[in-house]
């Protein structure tokens, strides 16, 4: 396989579409210069190849990841696709091709620049998902609980199961504003669904919702011990990035 075909792939941004890019590379026996989204503004020196998304092909590639490399590699690719990482698709493609050549060993090659970058990105994803489990806030919108998030990585698929299990008694909506991606859980029938949208409008908080938000802010302010105020420690434990979506800081 040689590097640097003078071509850029464009795909629809879905995981299935990405897997088809992997297959395309495999057929072409060449790596593209880059992988972009279909709706990326024009302007590249290279030829463009639009890669179609074919679910059956995608499923075959997906299966090959665990069969020809290892289940761990498959997991890394799935989660790696959720990460924010420069040249994400290209790095993952190179990782997969290396995996086809080296087998399960590829996941241990932590000195390889691609594997190293993916490891780092996965750690970031995991940490960010954990911060969301801690700091996400829901509001009762009458009939469902809703939460707005603005993560750098696509943490939604990682955090959604936690909340479905925990809040199984009601309906849930989580919306990721950064990636225009949402999730709905309906307790009747335990239906879970992801959706895409540019934005999501929620109703104005009801009187009851405001009441509990105010009680929470009161609790938050009261629980701190005056003699020990420590802004640096608070920032260290709870990065300021998350504050914008937290009830206690929305006044």
């Amino acid at each position, binding site marked *: 396989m040689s590097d640097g075909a003078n071509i850029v792939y464009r795909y629809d941004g879905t995981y299935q579409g990405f897997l088809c890019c992997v297959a395309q590379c495999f057929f072409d026996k060449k790596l593209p210069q880059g992988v972009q989204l279909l709706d990326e503004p024009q302007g590249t020196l290279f030829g463009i190849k639009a890669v179609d998304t074919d679910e059956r092909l995608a499923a075959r590639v997906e299966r090959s990841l665990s069969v020809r490399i290892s289940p761990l590699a498959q997991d890394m690719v799935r989660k790696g696709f959720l990460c924010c990482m420069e040249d994400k698709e290209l790095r993952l493609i190179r990782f997969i091709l290396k995996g086809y050549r080296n087998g399960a060993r590829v996941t241990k090659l932590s000195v390889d620049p691609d594997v190293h970058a993916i490891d780092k990105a996965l750690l970031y994803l995991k940490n960010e998902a954990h911060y969301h489990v801690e700091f996400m806030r829901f509001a009762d919108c009458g009939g469902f609980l809703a939460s707005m998030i603005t993560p750098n990585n696509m943490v939604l698929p990682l955090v959604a199961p936690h909340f479905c299990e925990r809040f199984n008694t009601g309906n849930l909506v989580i919306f990721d504003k950064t990636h225009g991606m949402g999730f709905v859980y309906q307790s009747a029938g335990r239906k879970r669904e992801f959706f895409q949208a540019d934005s999501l409008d929620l109703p104005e908080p009801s009187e009851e919702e405001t009441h509990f938000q105010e*009680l929470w802010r009161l609790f938050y302010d009261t629980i701190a011990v005056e003699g020990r*105020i420590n802004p640096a420690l608070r920032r260290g434990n709870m990065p300021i990035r998350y504050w914008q979506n937290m009830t206690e800081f929305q006044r």
Partner: protein
Amino acid sequence: MSELDIFKKLEILTDAAKYDVACTSSGVDRPGMEGKLGTAAKAGICHSFAADGRCISLLKVLMSNDCAFDCTYCVNRRSTDCRRASFTPEELCELTMQFYRRNYIEGLFLSSAVVKNPDYTCELMLSAVKMLRDDCGFWGYVHIKAIPGASPRLTEQLGRYADRMSVNIELPSQQSLKLLAPQKSKEKILTPMAQIRDGIAQNSREIVKYKAAPRFVPAGQSTQMIIGASPESDRQILDLTEALYKKYSLKRVFFSAYMPVVSDRALPAIDTPPPLLREHRLYQADWLLRFYGFTAGEILDEEHPDFNPLLDPKCNWAVNHMEHFPVEINTAPYEMLLRVPGIGVKSAMRIRSARRQCRLDFDGLKKLGVVLKRARYFIVCSGKSASPLPTDNPAVIAGAISERGLGQRKVDPPEQLSFFAPVREDGVKCLTGQI
């Protein structure tokens, strides 16, 4: 009292509970159950951090602050003129459920002042947690503070609803207790502690036999004591801590730097700053007891009854025992690796597994993520040292690894000590773990 609205009550009963330091939600994994609200995660989950930097995991409130007792150090003592309030079980359940479903909290931490008498107080708390579990279907975390002097039957019933229970030892000695908390006594505190210990042991035997046996305090028991309100030495406190772990199988002992809130001749003056450095050192030493195989007697002894303000207890031990160093990274037993300043549990485990594959040198240690800043004075790799200083004079080493600035520049301790109390959850990721 009835004219107080829920905002006032929440304010009063939070304010009265905030000095309690144990706010972890750890120790038990409980998957979701259809129709019930909540789950529990063994590592615990923090949901916010207050302005003092401490984790907020549980709704930490008192059932009531209308106390019949008169403990000198306490804001709620009978003889002070403070605002009094009590939650009804309904109010407490509503707050817990509504906060929980918005992901503000992991659960409830319920404590109480002594209303009328210990048994009456327990009945009040029991009616609240019963309603929370049975009627509201709450499946999240519940920490209940046992009331010393209550009848064992009530403590036992509370334990059936709690994930964790704690009995505060309050003060580090019997004399101090007598002086400052006249209605409490060592016996009244240790009796429920022993009862809970035995209840947990018996329950784990029941569960072996019969998996569906109802759980009793599955996340274990903890305690806390106030540091600096009474004259005990660090050594006395640490000895007591060790004894509590051993005799009562506690999960955690928490320390709380005394914050002068009331003036009394028997107490430090009202403008005394809380002894945060001391509290911090105690947490470090506590860590050494629990995870590093140290005994209290090794950390402090008769000649050195108090902590060194400039050196953490592990460094302090090392510079006083240079006869054990340097240790050879490639052959030293794991227990000895743990005693090297700068090598934490994680690093020691990494070294242990890496050296089975190949001989380690300093480069290799760096790749494993071992921080050599302090460790280099105490280790050799295949006989080679990386110490920039001769290691035969402990005073030189102590100077090189001391936390300069803590004692010399009189900086504001809360700012300086970025990791005092139990910061995050109990896990090894706690910063104080890497000492």
